Structure formats: C-alpha cells, structure tokens
C-alpha cells in the first residue's frame, strides 16, 4: 500500500481530519500515558498529517495508549487523536505479519490474577 493510500485508509477508519488540529498540545497535556510512548498524542496528529505513518505503525507507543480518550474529551478542535491511534493499530493488523500479539506470547504474560477475558479480548484486538 502506498503512503497516500495508507493516509487515506487511516482517515477513513478514524473519521478524523488532522488538518483541524491547531497544535495546542492539550491532548499531550491531558495524556496519562505520555511518558510511556515515544510519540505523543499531538505528534500522532501531525505525523498522520505529514504522512509519517510507517514510523507510527512501527512504534511501540501505539500499544501503550490506554484508549482513555482524555485527549478526545479535551481537544478544543474535536480532532480526536485516540481515534487516529486506533486507526493506526487497525492498519497494522491489516498488514501481513504485524500482529501485535501472537499465541506464543501468551504463556509468558499469563498471570494468575489476570482475568481470562482480558487475555482473550486482547488477543482478539491485537491479532487478525
């Protein structure tokens, strides 16, 4: 998939228009997982806008996003960065071999206190 197709796909999945962003940074101000990601919510928006999508797809940060939607809630321009992040995760899943979670990972992360559903739903979410 070419980069412009990729940008269009992200736009279609997320329904987000990154051009509405006025670069105020409130999303990154609100983000509780800010320090866990190498790219931050405001960067997500500008990277999608400038077409740096591959970089985003290969970033671990998209999986440390908590999907708490604080950025969506706080954004004064209704840009909705969390939806972009979700769209990038979906784009990864659509790509061959980019599953974030593989069956063989599971034994290692199994934890007695972890509800079984959490593993099952994470597996559903992060794998084709």
């Amino acid at each position, binding site marked *: 998939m070419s980069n412009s197709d990729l940008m269009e796909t992200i736009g279609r999945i997320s329904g987000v228009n990154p051009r*509405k962003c*006025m*670069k*105020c*940074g*409130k*999303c*990154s*101000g*609100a*983000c509780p997982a*800010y*320090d866990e990601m190498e790219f*931050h919510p*405001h*960067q997500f928006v500008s990277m999608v806008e400038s077409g740096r999508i591959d970089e985003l797809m290969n970033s671990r940060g998209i999986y440390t996003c908590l999907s708490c939607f*604080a950025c969506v*809630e*706080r*954004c*004064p*321009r*209704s840009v909705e960065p969390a939806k972009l992040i979700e769209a990038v995760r979906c784009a990864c899943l659509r790509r061959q071999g980019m599953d974030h979670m593989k069956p063989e990972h599971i034994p290692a992360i199994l934890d007695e206190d972890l509800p079984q559903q959490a593993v099952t739903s994470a597996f559903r979410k992060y794998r084709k």
Partner: protein
Amino acid sequence: MQRIGVFVCWCGSNIAATVDVEKVSEVLGHEPGVVFSTNYQYMCSQTGQDMIQSAIRDYKLTGVVICSCSPRMHETTFRRACEKAGLNPYLVEIANIREQCSWIHKDKAVGTEKAIILGRAAIAKVQLNRPLTAGESPVTKRALVIGGGIAGIQTALDIADAGFPVDIVEKKPTIGGKMTQLDKTFPTLDCAACILTPKMVEAAQNENIHIYSYSEVEAVKGFVGNFRVTIRKKARYVKEDVCTGCGLCTEKCPQKKVPNEFNLGLDTRRAIYIPFAQAVPKVATIDADYCRMLKEGKCGVCSKVCTAGAIDYKQKDELIEEAYGAIVVATGYNPIKLDKFDEFAYSQSPDVVSSLEFERLMNAAGPTGGVLLRPSDHTHPKTLVFVQCVGSRCDSEEKGKPYCSKICCMYTAKHAMLCREKYPDTEVYVFYIDVRTPGKNFDEFYRRAVEEYGVHYIKGMVGKVVPENGKLKVQASDLLDNRQLHIDADMVVLAAAIEPDESARPLATMLTASMDTNNFFTEAHPKLRPVESPTAGIFLSGACQGPKDIPETVAQAGAAASKAIGLLCKDHLTCNPCVAEPDELMCNGCSSCEKVCPYGAITYADKEFRGPNRTTLIRRVAQVNPAVCQGCGACTVACPSGAMDLKGFSNKQIMAEVDAICR
C-alpha cells in the same frame, strides 16, 4: 405619448469593441416612443452628460434610456444629470451593455444583438416609469446609547461634545462597565480607574448627557431619525435625586451575606449597596432579592439611618418613552462561564480563578486590598500557572467559542508581568497555543514579560489540574521540549473566552439589527462600514460588534459617535422613493403583506369606501410608511389581490421587460 431618448455609450472600446454601438442606437431609434437616439464615446463624461441634457431640452424627452455600464456604476450620475435638465431622475433607465454584455461576449454580432434586446427591455420599462419624488422624514436630534461601559461613555461624550443631547441606558446601578473592574491596563500599565473615572464624572456632569442607570431598553419602535424607545427604569428603592451617596446605609444594613458581583463573588456586600466608591451615579441601590424589608416586611434599618430620607420601599419600575434620531449599541461583553471546563478544576478549587477574578485580586480596591492572596487559605502563592485560550478557538459549541477572544494574550502577559514585579519570589508559567500581539507596543510588552520579568512562556496546553493537599497539580505539555510537565502550583488563572452580553440578542430583535451566529452585532460592511449596523440609524460601539481591547473600543466608540453625529446634523432624511404602495380599492386588509414585511412598515387603517347602491362600506386597508419601507417587494408577492405594488419595480414594468426580452 412618451418621448424617449436613447444614449448608447462606447465606454471607449470597452463596449464598442464587441458591440456595434452605431447599429444599436440606429435600431433602438426605431422603437416605439423613441424620438432621439445617439451614441458617444464616454456618456458619463461631462460632454456626454451635456449631450443628454441638451437632448432632454431639445426633444422634450419624457424618458431616458442609457445603454452603458452597470447601473451600480453610474445610475446616480445619469439620474443627477437628467435632474439638472429638469427631468425627474426616476425617468431614467440603464441598459447594462458592458458588464452584462460586451465584457462577456466575444462575437460582435452576438453582443450587438443582445445589446439591442437589453436596450429594448429598458425602453419598455421606461415607458411605464412614473416620476418619483423622494420623501423626507424629520430627524429627532437626540441619540440613545445602550450600555454605559467605556464604549458607551466615549460615544456619549463625543456626541454630547458635538452639541447633541444623548441618553445613556445602563442596566447596572452604575456606569463604567467592565473597565471599572480592571486593575492596570496594557500596554502602558496605567491604572484603569485613574483613566476611566474622570470620564464617568465627565459624562455625569455633561449637560447634554442624561444617564438612565439601573435601566433597560424595553421596546423600540420607529425608524432611522424617528426611533421611539421605551426605557424601563428599574426600582432601586432609593430616590436617586435625594440620596447623597454617603454610604451610611451600606454600613448599617444587617444583611451582610450578599455575594458581591463587583468582586465577582470573591467577597460579600450588604443588601443595600453602592457598587464601588467612584460609582456614577453615586447612589445606593437595594438588592430586592436579599432585602429583608422587601422580602419579609421587617427591618427598615436603612430607612432609619438615612438622614436624607432617600429610601423608598414602595418604589416601582418606571417606564419612560423617549424619541431618538440615532441609537448606538454598546452592550459589551462578558467572560464565558467556566463550569464546562472541569479539567481545570475551576469549580473544585477556589484557587483556580478566571482572569477577571485575578484582576480583582490584584486591585487595590479589591477584596484583598491589592495583596495577592489565595482565596482558599489567604496565603501568598509562590507558583502561578496561567492558561490561555480557555474556551476560545473551540470547535465545540456547547463548551466554548470558535473565535479568538483577542484580548487574552495581552492581559495574561500583563498579569504575569505585574505578578513578577510585585512578588519577585513567584514562579509564573504561561501556557499558550499562540501568542497574538498585533498592536502598537504590544509585542514589545509581551517580550518584556519574558525577557525582563522572567515569565516562563511555554508552548503547550494544560491537560488537567488536580487539587491535592492544598496544591494544584498541573499536568501540561511542553511542545517545544516534547515533554510532559508536572507543576505543583498554588494558583491557576484561566484566560476565559469573552462573549457578547446576554442582553444583546433580544436587543437586536427589538432593533431589527442583524447578528452573527456568535451573537455579535453585524456591521453594514466588514471593511467600509464597520461601525454601522445594516439597519439604518443603528450604530455599533465596542465589544458588542466583536472582541476588542480598550484602545480599539475607544476608537470605534468615537467612530460610531461621528456616524451618529453625521445623522443628527441633518434636519431631514431623504427616503428611497422606490417603496411599496397599496391600491386601497383592491386591498383585502388580509394582513398577508404585514406578515412578511421585515421592517414593520405596514399598518392598517379602517377607511370608508363607496359600496353599491349609494352605501358606504368600512374596510380595513393596508398603509405603507414610506420612511420605513426599504423597497424589498416581499409584500407585493404575498398580496393575493395584487393590491400591493412596488414603485420603480412595478408588476407592469417587470412584465414589460420580460415581454421585451422574450419577444
């Protein structure tokens, strides 16, 4: 029989290049009623006008058709020229053969043919033109200024200086508006009270100015030059002319727990109060919502202590009707409510304040006597965080406003600077999206805050504020450093967006003045007529038209005053004679026309008519006020009987044009 003259203009080569002007004047010369037809290089030139004028005299013309540029260009020129030669100016019609013919067609045959048809249409119309005389209506030489803030005061002073009486209607007990609540003003840092209060006093003392304080506009009737306005003077339960403003009652009143709106509720006042020491008029007002005497019928302390005998618990609202020639709207602005911005903990912590509240906390006449103290524990704050654009530039309608509030960047820089100047031991952070400082000495001012006063300007936005153990945990982004900041602040100051006063919308309806979706009054032209409303006789002063700082407001106030003065200087106004006209014999009196008239120009009268067999019938028939009617023609189509027609654009005239074009 009509005697029509046709004048075809070449407009140099503008018309002549694609229209055979010779042929046009030749063909149109043979149209019925045409007795003279010619063409000339520049009809609008003095020579051209002379040609028209001598033809009017020589051929005793009863109508003139000029085939030239758009009537929007030279209709007035040609009408004036004909008037000078003794022809009624409304017997002139223009055929637009430049903008709507020669300039859009390349083929000369096509252009010529179309020019002839357009000329024929104009001839057909002019056959039916009637001489019209512009009516006149007198101008009441008195102005009304609605709103007594700096905008209203300045406008009133300027109009009064020109020698015209002017009334100010202010809904609060005192004039002065928002500016009275400010501490210092940017970019010069002079004290707001020091520059405003002399103007307030001047307004009160000016013989030409009458102040209706604690009053509101109740109804507006009439039209430019002849407005009739009903003013509701609200009962203040104190005789304004008797009260000396000594303030004894405001000290003795036992009801002490009234939130003081002048200090934005940061402290309390009594039920009888004078908003602040320099109030104009300096008279007490009883707050009926809190006064025990008015609510329960017992107390009466103020009446007992008042040596002047000014208290009157039986006072009622008073309605005053006054006539005005011009109305200036100066209803100003308010900061928006911040309760939708939970992320900044505004409603959770008293130490999160709005900028206007901060202004009161810094003001020597404020609740803390000018000492910056935290509202929660009255300690001196060490770390302050200012957040800009709270509610401005906001996409969501229910939370904020889509526009830039314009003044926040500058007053925040002012706050930060004053804070650092008074308390050098403080750390001051300003979070900004953009710093917008266009204005004389504005950017220099902001740079001084950064460079000389060491204010930390951070490009980024506060994401959340959490009150915790007496501190305010501020989490924010620093976009240039690409990191998230966590600041333990003592105070957070929010630069709230500003919005038009809530009285503006109902007022606009009364005035039939137009407004934009944000409830700001619309100007007649955004560039060329910025202080006039599209509704004639209504002028705009200050922030009611859009966000503005003080210098801009004062400039606009002066401009609005000069426009109002220009109107009041006239003894009579000339009305557009192309107005609706009912044929009473055909009128059904059904009110259809009245229902669609945007100006309220149509009223009804019962008139006697001759019925069959020598009887008389009384019928309700429409009457048009030609001074109010603007000539849109909505009524002419609403009228089922065709009784309503429009002068200058009558049914028959338009149909004659249709026929000429289609034939």
